Each structure stands twice: as structure tokens, then as C-alpha cells.
């Protein structure tokens, strides 16, 4: 049975409530409750369409300007007065300001400035046309609006105690690494959320979380992929299972900079030798299909198919001997959690069939991310194969951006250096015509696969269980927005 309290499980604790420095996960969920953004997204199962939220109106004036008007009665807590267009200007420009060093600055890279028209309305001016702004920048992460006066009073910086909030809920209690409690904001002018109280429980272990869900400790939780099959087959009582594809996409990087992989035929041999279907069955329980690229499947931008769609060990071996590399040993670098290790072992076994020996080299998360960083030395040139995954977005640009040449030595670990790709990327972000954008995105993924630097695996499945008596709303990033959870009759 669903009560007046919505109990949600998240994995990590809160670090900061400053949108400019937030990390994700719990923080984003919290901010969706505490702040407003100009627009918001719908459920990912509906394709996550965007709709106005903190703005009464939000319209594209021309390629480079968007006008907005805030809803009436939005008020800051702490007696800081009404929420104004000035606050919007402050929030966006702050994140875009390189001096602030916000990790989300890239989302507002194209922001020129925000023009304040009057108290409630303003115009967002872009440097160049940037179509993804409605789904990438405005509804989440950096799009949350903070109080100019409050922030300035706090010295321009704050972390877990925001100087003022204006969203449907207020942050009322925090038990470190255990529980966060949100209660309704009496000043909230918009539609009242269904739930009187939101509790966010912090449980990092998926196994434990599932047990705790069954023990009725909360009403909504993500489930480990390994357990998904079981949960689907025997769901706990009074439970609905949601299955979706998340925006986390996984692929195998084949590093062209590696001395062992300079020859395109060798890279292609690797591409031919990875049996992705085994990974999907073995690790993901066939909950998800093979991805054709990095772009979110199910959107119009997804490629129709992979160029190399099925493993061909003979071909791989032929390519290898052609390249004179029949005795190839490669290391496969991987982050040391159970899912990724399982994928790595299947890749290892699969490459073995083509005569490629693979040594798995696991790293802990922090060490792993430093491997491709050119400021940390030359390791990025020596990686062979890396199993990678990024959390992406629904707009293709968000996922393709990391393969740009300028990302070599940062996050383009394939060493994929294609001028054509860069050109197409620039066109993609500026283009507003959907047809053309689809063609651009598809071409970019073709380029990626042709380079021999990538084997696309999948977009990880998202499995969520929740009490039947409610309707959750999940953003494409896989995290819920508690404000729009509905009690079903």
C-alpha cells in the first residue's frame, strides 16, 4: 500500500546542492524537488518529451534566442523575495563562466548571455544555434535556478546548505549517508505534488537494496541487472517492474594510438572477434539489445545497424595474419565492478577464439579515469582495449561529443582523430532540422566504426521496482523526479 510518504532508494549520499558543482544521482533528484528549472522532462518510457515547468512560457525566438516568462508567485525561502529573471541570468551565466570551473559549463558553452526583460521574463541569447538546449541544459543539472542575492550573500559558494530554495519541497532533514527527508514547501505556487513527504534512502549495494525493498523499507528502487531476470519472473508482492533502456552506453575502445593497434586491420580483427550477443545474454540477461552506436536507441537519431553486426572469427584471423599480427596479446583495461568484469571476461573468451590473447587489467574507479588523461603521462597511448561506459543523454550530440579529436588524451580513449567527425559535430549542434541531424549523427557513428576504434555494445538496461500503487516518473538519466510521482487510484 502506498502512503503519504514517498520512499525512494538512491545509491550515494548528497555532496552539494550547488547546481554548478553537483555530481549527479541523489543531488539531481534532490534539486528537482528543491529548485525549479525553466522546463522539465517527461518519463523516459514516453521518450522524455520536455514541457515548461518553472516558466509559464518558453519559446524559441530565433536560432539563437529563447524567451521565457517565469510562473507567478515563485518565492525564495529565507525571505529573499520572489524568483526573478535576474536569478535565471545569474544561475546560467555563473555556470558558463570559465572562472567558476563548473563541470557543467559545457552545457552552457553556447550561452552568450541572458537578457533580463522584466522581473519575470527574459531572453536567453546563444552564441550559435544550439538545438539540444531544451533537453540537455535547461531541465536538469545546470538548469536549476538559484538565488542571486542568497548566493552572493554566501560569498558566491555554498554546498549542502543552499542559501535559498523555491521548489515544491524543502529539505528538512539529513542523516548522513542514510536518509534525506523532504517536506512540502508551503510557499510553492504550482500544483501540489502527490506525496506529502519524500524520503530518500541511501543504500549503495543493490543486493541489500532489493532485500530492503522486500522488507518494505522503501517503495522505489533500482535493481541489479544480475537480479533482474529473477525479479521479473517472481516479483515481490504488490510490485511493478519497470524495464527500460538507460542512457548509459557501453562500448569497447580499441586504442589506435597503441603500438599494437596501429594497423587498421588488427583493429578490425578485434571488431570482428567480439561476440556482443554473448555479453547481452551472459551479463544483461537479454534485457537490452545491441546498440548500433552511442546515440540513444529508440530515438530517431539511432543508426539502423552496425557495420559489423556479428562476430566472424575466420575473418578476424585472416585480417590478423594479413597484418602479420597473428600472435597478438592485448590488455583489456576495465573498472573493477562485477558487471564490467563479467563483460570483460566474455570479451576475453571471445577474442581468444580469434587467437587474440587478452589480459584483463582491472582498476578502481578513480585510478581508471586517470588512465586516458594526457596530463598524467603517456599511459593513454599505451592502452589497448578499454571497456568504457558513459552516462549520456537523449540528444545525439551529448554522446558524440566525447569522440571529438580535441578529446584525445581526455575522454576519447580510442585516439579517434577524424576531421570529418569534428566538422559533422559542429554541424550537428547548430542544425535544428531533424532530418539533417539524423543523417549527421548516423554518418558520425559510421565514421567511428570504420576507424576500427569502437565496438558498440549496448545501452545498459534499467530495471526498477516500485509499489504498484504509484506511477513513477523517471528521467532519461535513470533517476526519478519525485515531484511528479503520482498515486494511482
Amino acid at each position, binding site marked *: 500500500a502506498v502512503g503519504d510518504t514517498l520512499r525512494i532508494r538512491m545509491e550515494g549520499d548528497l555532496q552539494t546542492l550547488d547546481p554548478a558543482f553537483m555530481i549527479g544521482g541523489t543531488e539531481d533528484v534532490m534539486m528537482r524537488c528543491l529548485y525549479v528549472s525553466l522546463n522539465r522532462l517527461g518519463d523516459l518510457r514516453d521518450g522524455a518529451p520536455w514541457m515548461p515547468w518553472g516558466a509559464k512560457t518558453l519559446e524559441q525566438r530565433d536560432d539563437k534566442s529563447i524567451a521565457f516568462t517565469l510562473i507567478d508567485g515563485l518565492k525564495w525561502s529565507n525571505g529573499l523575495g520572489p524568483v526573478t529573471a535576474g536569478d535565471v541570468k545569474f544561475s546560467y551565466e555563473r555556470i558558463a563562466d570559465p572562472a567558476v570551473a563548473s563541470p557543467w559549463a559545457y552545457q552552457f558553452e553556447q550561452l552568450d548571455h541572458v537578457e533580463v526583460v522584466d522581473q519575470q521574463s527574459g531572453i536567453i541569447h546563444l552564441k550559435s544555434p544550439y538545438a539540444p538546449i531544451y533537453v540537455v541544459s535547461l531541465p536538469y543539472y545546470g538548469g536549476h535556478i538559484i538565488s542571486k542575492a542568497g548566493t552572493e550573500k554566501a560569498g558566491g559558494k555554498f554546498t549542502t546548505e543552499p542559501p535559498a530554495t523555491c521548489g515544491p519541497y524543502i529539505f528538512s532533514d539529513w542523516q548522513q549517508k542514510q536518509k534525506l527527508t523532504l517536506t512540502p514547501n508551503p510557499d510553492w505556487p504550482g500544483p501540489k505534488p502527490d506525496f506529502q513527504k519524500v524520503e530518500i534512502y541511501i543504500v549503495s549495494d543493490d*543486493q541489500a537494496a*532489493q532485500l530492503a525493498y522486500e522488507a518494505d523499507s522503501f517503495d522505489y528502487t533500482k535493481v*541489479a541487472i*544480475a*537480479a533482474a*531476470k*529473477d525479479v521479473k519472473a517472481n516479483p515481490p508482492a504488490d510490485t511493478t517492474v519497470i524495464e527500460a533502456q538507460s542512457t548509459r552506453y557501453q562500448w569497447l575502445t580499441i586504442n589506435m594510438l597503441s603500438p599494437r593497434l596501429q594497423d587498421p586491420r588488427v583493429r578490425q580483427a578485434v571488431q570482428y572477434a567480439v561476440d556482443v550477443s*554473448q555479453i547481452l*545474454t*551472459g551479463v544483461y540477461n537479454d534485457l537490452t539489445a545491441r546498440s548500433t552506436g552511442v546515440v540513444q536507441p529508440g530515438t530517431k537519431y539511432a543508426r539502423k545497424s552496425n557495420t559489423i553486426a556479428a562476430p566472424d572469427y575466420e575473418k578476424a584471423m585472416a585480417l590478423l595474419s594479413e597484418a602479420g599480427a597473428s600472435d597478438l596479446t592485448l590488455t583489456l583495461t576495465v573498472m*573493477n*565492478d*562485477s558487471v564490467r*568484469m*563479467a563483460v*570483460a*571476461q*566474455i570479451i*576475453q*573468451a571471445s577474442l581468444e577464439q580469434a587467437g587474440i590473447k587478452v*589480459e*584483463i*587489467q*582491472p*582498476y*578502481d574507479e578513480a*585510478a581508471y579515469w586517470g588512465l586516458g588523461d594526457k596530463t598524467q603521462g603517456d599511459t593513454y597511448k599505451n592502452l589497448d582495449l578499454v571497456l568504457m561506459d558513459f552516462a549520456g543523454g537523449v540528444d545525439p550530440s551529448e554522446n558524440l561529443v566525447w569522440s571529438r579529436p580535441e578529446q584525445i588524451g581526455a575522454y576519447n580513449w580510442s585516439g579517434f582523430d577524424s576531421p570529418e567527425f569534428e566538422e559533422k559535430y559542429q554541424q550537428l549542434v547548430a542544425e535544428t532540422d531533424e532530418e539533417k541531424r539524423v543523417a549527421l549523427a548516423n554518418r558520425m557513428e559510421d565514421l567511428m566504426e570504420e576507424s576500427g576504434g569502437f565496438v558498440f555494445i549496448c545501452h545498459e538496461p534499467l530495471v526498477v521496482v516500485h509499489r504498484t500503487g504509484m506511477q513513477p516518473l523517471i528521467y532519461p538519466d535513470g533517476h526519478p523526479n519525485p515531484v511528479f510521482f503520482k498515486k494511482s487510484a
Partner: protein
Amino acid sequence: MSFVAEAVQTRRGWGHFPLLRALASNPVTLAALVIVIVFLMMAAFAPWLAPYPPTKIDVLHKLQPPSAEHWFGTDHLGRDLLSRIIHGARTALTIAIGSVAVAGSVGLLLGLIAGYGPRWLDGVLVLVFDSLNSLPMIMFALAIITVLGTGTGTLIFVIAATSFPSYARLIRAQTLALKNSDYILAERLMDAHPLRILLVHLLPNVVGPLIILLSMDIPVVIMVEAGLSFLGLGVRPPTPSWGSILYDGYTSIRSAPFVVIFGGLPLVLATLGFTFLGEGLRDSLDPRLKLRRPA
């Protein structure tokens, strides 16, 4: 003299394996000895004993419950669990015996130096021992493993480096106790070289309790390896180890509990085996032996 005759006779009567016979006289110790020997055989002859290659993946038959083909079932990648456990014995015992041997030798050496050497050196060494003891293990393990990379050698190094202080303390305490014993004084009186005293007279007398302690610590090390596997710091996959089997089993503990159960079984058996063997050794070597770890 009849006493001498008696003594000589008994020596002969006991034959060449008095220790083995003494061990075998206690049924529990005998069982422990058998377990340990079985595990050692398993480790030695793993490739011949295992019904399947331990790394053979078969995703279509993953997490199969025990059956005629797979006596212990299969793991999350469809590998034969029994084969992995048999091969895992090799990894587990290599790491356990390796690190215990390394830690034991280092502890022995430093303990002797601390106990017999000059007092300032003793102070420095004790400080090192205590500090290493109070250093958080995971932090240390993480530092070493990220620098050296995972692998059996690294694991042995990490475990040895964190466990040798307790052996060193034991040896030091023993050495201090023996340092002023009459026979060491007698040797000093004959102007025996300190090195000779250390190696010929002190070493053989402190090493006994150490060996017993080491044998009882072997299962502890196996558990530590399992714990490090749990943190993703264990042996490099797909090498099977008891720790990694358990770790893999954890993710499917609900749907396929047999993985954890069969994966944990050798750990429990090995613990029983080595612990009781160690206790048996202690009882038959010297019933009054003080096996207390210095705090």
C-alpha cells in the same frame, strides 16, 4: 646406565616420523591433516582433477544448479564451479602459503633483530610494527595494488606486508625472553659471535611457535584474499580463486545460492583443516607452548 638406554631406545622406537605419528594419534588432527593434504593435492593436480577448463565460458548455461554434468553447478558466466574451486585451491594456497612464508621470514628476521639487537633499534622496529598494525589495511592494499597492478605477487606482497608485524612481535617477545636465558649466557661466556648466537641458538628456539602460528594463519590469509576480491582487489580475472568465486556468487546470492555455498565450502574446510592441524602441531610439539600474540 638404564636411563640412557631408555632414552636412546625411545628415540629409535619413535622412528623417523615421531611428529607425524603424534599428529595421527588424535582423530581430529588426523582429519585436519587429511583435509590439508587433499587441498594440497587439489592444488598440485588441478588440471587433471578438474572436469572442465576453469575459464570455459558458456553463457547459455549460466547459474545452472548442481547436476550430473556440473556437480557444483555453474557460475554467472556458465563456468563449471567444481573446476573453478579445484583450480582456486591452487591460487588460494599459493597466495596463502606464499604470503605466510614471506611474512614469517620477514617477521622472524626483524623480530630477532629487534629482540637481540641494540635497544634503540628495538624501539624503532617496535614503532614500525605498531604503526603498520594500525595502518588501515584497505588504504594500504589500494595504494600497493594500484601502483603494482593486481596479481598473485602483489597480493602476496600486500598480505605479507600487513601481517608480518604480528609475527615480528611474537618473535621479538620470544627472543627477549630467551635473551637472558642461561644457555645464551653460557654461549656469551664462551665469546660466541652474536651472529652465531642468533642463528644457531636463538633461531631454532623461536621458530617453533612461529611455524604453528603460521599454519593457523593460512586460513586467515585465504579469508583476506576473499575480502580483497570483494573490493575488486583480488587476483586478476579470469584466474579462479576462492575469494573471487565468493565475490561472483554474491551478485546472485538470491537466485543461485549454491554458488556462495559451494564457494564458501572449501574456505570453511580449509580453515578447519589448517586450524586444527596447527593446534595439533602445537599440542604434539610442545603442550606448554605459549601461542599468544603480543598485543
